[in-house]
């Protein structure tokens, strides 16, 4: 019975858990325990799903027993299961880490609200990855976004409020653009179900209505995923949100939006959009600017959280490059980087959370001497940084390897050169932080600080360990990504 309901449990349980926490467990510890248990449950559920679909099977679930084109269908294929595992895995680890960090950063009487919002976000993100209905996807998009705005606004500084407001305005515009796109598709096909759309779209793919729909969908989702020129909400939102929120969002929210883009291009239109509209060239051009310009901007940041936020925009560029190459290797690289970037940014932001926990600041200059004072935290930061740069034996290397392989496959040498160049920029911005932390003494008279608590170190090192483990043993990640890419390319 449980197994038949697997595709919905990981969405429903957090959704029910959120109001439960609000009503019954308002103590910080109680709310945290509830969120922790639910997060680990969703991880178990999603791993079970991944096992089921890894054979190439597609699991379909009809909500309320209404048959597919009329009712809402949940549809889990390899790619969906892969994204669900990323989201729930990061959720489970950050919740393990969250208790002390949240107590230090969010006023005590609002902590239960934070966990409620976290559960809603989790439910929304997992829902986006699971649903097979385009309008249902919009609803989940807004569930996750609205609760995300609240989580961002819980940051300690007052600038968190304006960051949340600007995110809300742009996020709502993005979601509304998406709805317009869905509406235009509905107008031409009379269906919202993805599997149904796949069959009906080819007939009308050349009409102006569908071209407009593609444009609206691309811009709308682009706003959500932090596509280069419309990423402006992202740096402030990441900088001023509480540490745990930043780690969770950076590792999941943008990844899920990238997933939606892949879904639209490769599942709904079966790659046909690339023939009717030059979306691949546009994405490629924007991403190239993103990986160079945003990495360069990151070099000049004094706030390390903001530095990593700009680096995130650049890293999203890598994913989009992979997607816009429209080859199996390219798509593999893009999908692979979804997972790998979640691991490295998760680890880095959790490390910054530990730093903030001890010194109440994440400015580069305040981090002087931390290499000695907080050896485990900074070692995690360095490992995450190496992974971000793409040093062998880390996941970052695997992603870049496949990305460069894909660009060489197309014989686009300059593209490979730009990717390598932007990695060099990553060396510079990571080095700035590492240099201050290891080669400068703590200012005289500064309070002596100790290592972050074990309850925060362990989850952080789990992610760091994953960075190294999946950098060496690539069978699982590359295998899954390649299978998903092959499936999407229809091969």
């Amino acid at each position, binding site marked *: 019975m449980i197994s038949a309901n697997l595709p919905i449990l990981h969405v429903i349980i957090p959704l029910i858990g959120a109001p439960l926490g609000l009503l019954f467990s308002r103590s910080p510890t109680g709310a945290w325990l509830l969120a922790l248990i639910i997060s680990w449950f969703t991880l178990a559920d999603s791993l079970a799903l991944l096992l089921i679909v890894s054979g190439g099977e597609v699991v379909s679930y009809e909500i309320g027993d209404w048959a597919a084109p009329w009712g809402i269908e949940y549809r889990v294929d390899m790619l969906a299961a892969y994204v669900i595992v990323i989201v729930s895995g990061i959720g489970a680890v950050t919740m393990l880490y969250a208790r002390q960090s949240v107590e230090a950063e969010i006023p005590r009487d609002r902590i239960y609200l934070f966990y409620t919002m976290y559960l809603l976000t989790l439910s929304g993100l997992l829902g986006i990855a699971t649903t097979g209905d385009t*309008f249902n996807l*919009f*609803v989940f998009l807004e569930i996750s976004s609205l609760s995300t705005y*609240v989580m961002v606004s819980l940051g300690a500084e007052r600038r968190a409020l304006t960051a949340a407001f600007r995110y809300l*305005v742009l996020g709502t515009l993005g979601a509304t653009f998406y*709805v317009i796109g869905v509406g235009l598709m509905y107008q031409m096909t009379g269906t919202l179900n993805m599997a149904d759309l796949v069959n009906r779209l080819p007939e009308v793919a050349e009409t102006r209505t569908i071209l407009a729909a593609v444009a609206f969908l691309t811009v709308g989702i682009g706003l959500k995923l932090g596509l280069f020129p419309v990423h402006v909400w992202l740096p402030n939102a990441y900088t001023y949100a509480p540490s745990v929120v930043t780690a969770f969002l950076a590792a999941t929210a943008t990844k899920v939006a990238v997933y939606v883009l892949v879904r639209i291009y490769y599942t709904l239109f079966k790659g046909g959009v690339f023939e009717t509209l030059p979306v691949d060239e546009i994405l490629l051009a924007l991403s190239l600017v993103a990986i160079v310009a945003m990495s360069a901007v990151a070099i000049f940041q004094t706030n390390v959280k903001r530095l990593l936020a700009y680096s995130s925009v650049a890293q999203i560029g890598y994913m989009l490059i992979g997607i816009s190459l429209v080859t199996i290797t390219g798509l593999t690289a893009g999908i692979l980087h979804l997972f790998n970037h979640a691991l490295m940014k998760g680890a880095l932001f959790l490390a910054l959370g530990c730093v903030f926990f001890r010194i109440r600041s994440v400015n580069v200059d305040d981090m002087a001497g931390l290499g000695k004072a907080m050896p485990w935290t900074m070692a995690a930061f360095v490992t995450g940084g190496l992974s971000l740069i793409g040093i062998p034996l880390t996941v970052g290397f695997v992603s870049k390897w496949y990305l460069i392989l894909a660009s060489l496959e197309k014989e686009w040498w300059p593209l490979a050169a730009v990717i390598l160049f932007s990695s060099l920029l990553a060396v510079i911005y990571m080095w700035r932080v590492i240099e201050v932390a290891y080669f400068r003494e703590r200012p005289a008279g500064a309070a002596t600080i100790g290592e972050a608590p074990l309850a925060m170190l362990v989850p952080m090192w789990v992610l760091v360990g994953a960075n190294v483990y999946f950098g060496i043993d690539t069978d699982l990640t590359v295998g899954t990504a390649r299978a998903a890419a092959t499936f999407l390319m229809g091969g």
Partner: protein
Amino acid sequence: METVIGLFNYWIVIVLMMAGFYIVIAQENMIKKMVGLSIFQVAVFVFYISMSNVFGGTAPIAAEGFTLYSNPLPHVLILTAIVVGVATTALGLALIVRIKEEFGTIEDDRIRDMEEHGEESEA
């Protein structure tokens, strides 16, 4: 004439959508931004409702003597979208209240000034 009268609803949609979008971009006052955002969303609601219309069809309520109905599905979708819109507006306004408490103003350009040039520029 056909394109003006026949597509009247869609023209309204475009006008509303662009007006709302323009307000969001051009206005510095946060309340006005929320107003623009609402207009923008309402334009989409009108768009969905317009396309659900079937020539000669009545409201989709089963009753004797009627066989042709408008498509009810977009109506239902827009009910959901309205709920989302209300939630967005509520959250946006709540944030504006908090911003007013913290910054003493809800003009985005002045807040940006305060953020960039330190705290003391605006008392």
